[in-house]
């Protein structure tokens, strides 16, 4: 899976797992801020997304200081997943 596919897949997960009714994958730009301003997600969303991503990609997203950077945007998430995909 290349990074572009991963980004697309993550967007799909975001819309589905976080019940963003009325939004589509096309509405989520790669570099859109996911938390705080941007998409306005909260820490419960982060948890839900992390769980879904772990199931989908087999990659565990750490629940620590690092995670803020990783969860910045779809781009950063996809980069993390790509780097840690199980061989």
């Amino acid at each position: 899976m290349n990074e572009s596919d991963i980004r697309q897949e993550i967007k799909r997960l975001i819309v589905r797992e976080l019940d963003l009714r009325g939004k589509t994958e096309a509405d989520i730009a790669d570099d859109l801020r996911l938390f705080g301003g941007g998409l306005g997600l909260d820490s419960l969303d982060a948890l839900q997304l992390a769980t879904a991503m772990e199931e989908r990609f087999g990659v565990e997203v750490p629940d620590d200081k690092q995670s803020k950077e990783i969860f910045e945007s779809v781009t950063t998430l996809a980069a993390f997943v790509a780097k840690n995909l199980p061989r």
Partner: protein
Amino acid sequence: MTARALERIAVTGLGMVTSLGEGSKRVFHRLVAGDVGIDSEPLELGVTLPKLPVARVVLADVGATPEPKAQTSWSRCDVFAVKAAREALAQAGLFSQSVEALVGETAGTLREAVLDYARGPSDDTAPLLRRMVLEPLGMTSVRLREALEQVTSSVVVCSACSSGALAIALGAMRLEQGAKQPQLVGGTDSLNALTLTGFGALGALSSDACRPFDEQRQGLNLGEGAAFLVLETETMVRARGGTVLAWLDGYAVGAEAHHLTHPEADGKRASELIAEAMSRAGLTARDIGYVNAHGTATVQNDAMETTAMCRVFRDETARIRVSSSKGQLGHTLGAAGAIEAAIVVEALCEQVVPPTAGLVTPSPECALSLVARKGVTCEFTAALSSSFGFGGAGAVLALVTAEGTLRRSPLVERRERVFVTSVVTLGPSGILRGRENARLLDESTQPLSPRLPFEPLDALVMERSRRFDRLTALSALGTELTLAGAARSGQNVGLVLGNALGDVSRSVEFLRRVRARGLRAAQPAEFPHLLPSSVSGNASIYAGLTGPVFNVSQLGPTATESLLLARTCLRSAMATAMIMGTVEVVDDAVFSVLLEAGKAASTEVPPTEGAAFLLLESGPEFDETTGREPRCELLASANVRDFIHLAEPSWRPSGSSEVLSSIENEGAELDEVLRAVGWQDVPRRSAQARVGTGWHYPGFMLATAAARVLAGEVERALVLTETPDGVHLTLLALT
């Protein structure tokens, strides 16, 4: 308007079942000694769980029913409840005296159904669904009545982790307002795969024994158990020569209107509740010697609670001892508030403060006078017990030693009149506001669609209604519209929401995923929405409500109980207005189960779905009759046995009057009462043509009756409903 000095409320009995054993005194002594009821032995719940510390109850014969005459086996949490209730009643010396029960609970009754599903060979969720429908949360009420003949009424209330304390506060309110029977109040819950996987998915569970207020704290340990208190007024106790264990001099119940799972970091609402409970008891920080905190050992709660306490206690913070019992008993969810209240009573009786097991090094953000490993002897007269749950629903109790004098000047109840100032229904006839609801009595030959003719989710702000199921959406929409109908904000307004089953299918789906795909498939953001309290919790956050917020559960209509408890909260000034609601949605799978079990109407009249809401207000501005536009007064709401004794001349029919009834077989008792108050020949009306049938119907009758009065179309409307405790009469009047 009559004024009456409020009675002091006495605690006269305690009962406990916990992971440190049974018996309130025995458990307390073990707590003081520092014993811990938490272990990491494998827990067999059908789902493969990581090695998790939990506090489990060990009962010799927990599998067997405690009652030889019971037909089916009981849920574990109901066994706990009956045992604890029995102990409390025995200690109070009330062996045959009628009592009224209130039970806090979150999810215990589904333990066995989930266990069998998880262990069973088949993926098929039908048996699980069936059991969850037929043995829902409200079952505990049924079991208490079955096991204890003296329990004349019993209601399950749910405000998540503060349910037990809520039940106690409601019992006190009832007594202050003139209830004639002692109140058996408490909570129960059992370990089950739903809460374990759910809290686990949220990352809220610690992999070690929990450490409340500690700098290394990383989450809670779940526990199970039950506790009951017997509450009586001072007059009741003295009249029968009973013993006062402690006084429940103050309480406060409210919500944060913030977030379903995260508390407000600044603890502002929590501090208000602490201050209110103290103030109601006439206590200042100088009087408080001990606080049994909620202290779940999550990073967020303990910090928030500390902030809240410091804000209220200020300079006294360094002196007031604080401990959390959850390090020894775990977080017992629906039982927690009750177990901890009983612990505080024991502490007051023995003048010993129990410890906080698991606490080694207090966190810098928890700068309190924390009692660590063992209990300490201490002279103190007053103590607090705090509980804060999901949805920001909190309850704080203020207790004083039996020898302690009453610090407040006697509270005088102003006995203000209660008015219905807004009515909203959402049902087969669409969304009806205020007087529009009078149209529900119109005739109609149109067949009713079982499903609503509109989608409640479409009417809500998307960003604030994420993950709302239809039940929650309907509740949030109804709540918002009801507030709007009286042009009010949610500030100081509460909500009592009655719903029989919760969203069973949603819980089943959560569990199906876990069974099929393992713990990784447990969706963290789903779980908080599966607790019964999430329906009222979500609605209260959506509408910004900060008064008492909780669900009422019953295997049947809930409108009567919700109305009564809403009125109770209003009369005790827990809020300046209270919304009462009843909501039911139709789910085909659930309906099939009910039909097959003979608990639903035939397929010729499938149930409809809908929600009915009333806003109750009282206050000086309503007392003067100035001949302004028609107002609807809630003149009376009582069961058939009490109605006749309480009846006043104004309760007779007057001008144009009508009766709305959902009772199939009225019986001689009701007939006699109606005759005695002159209502026997008043025309009967029905809203069934426009509402359909279902557990929400009584709520619609109340709404319709109120609307008819508000529209000036009738002067008096009497609504007859059926409850497990018999027929209930509610009288609405034009003023």
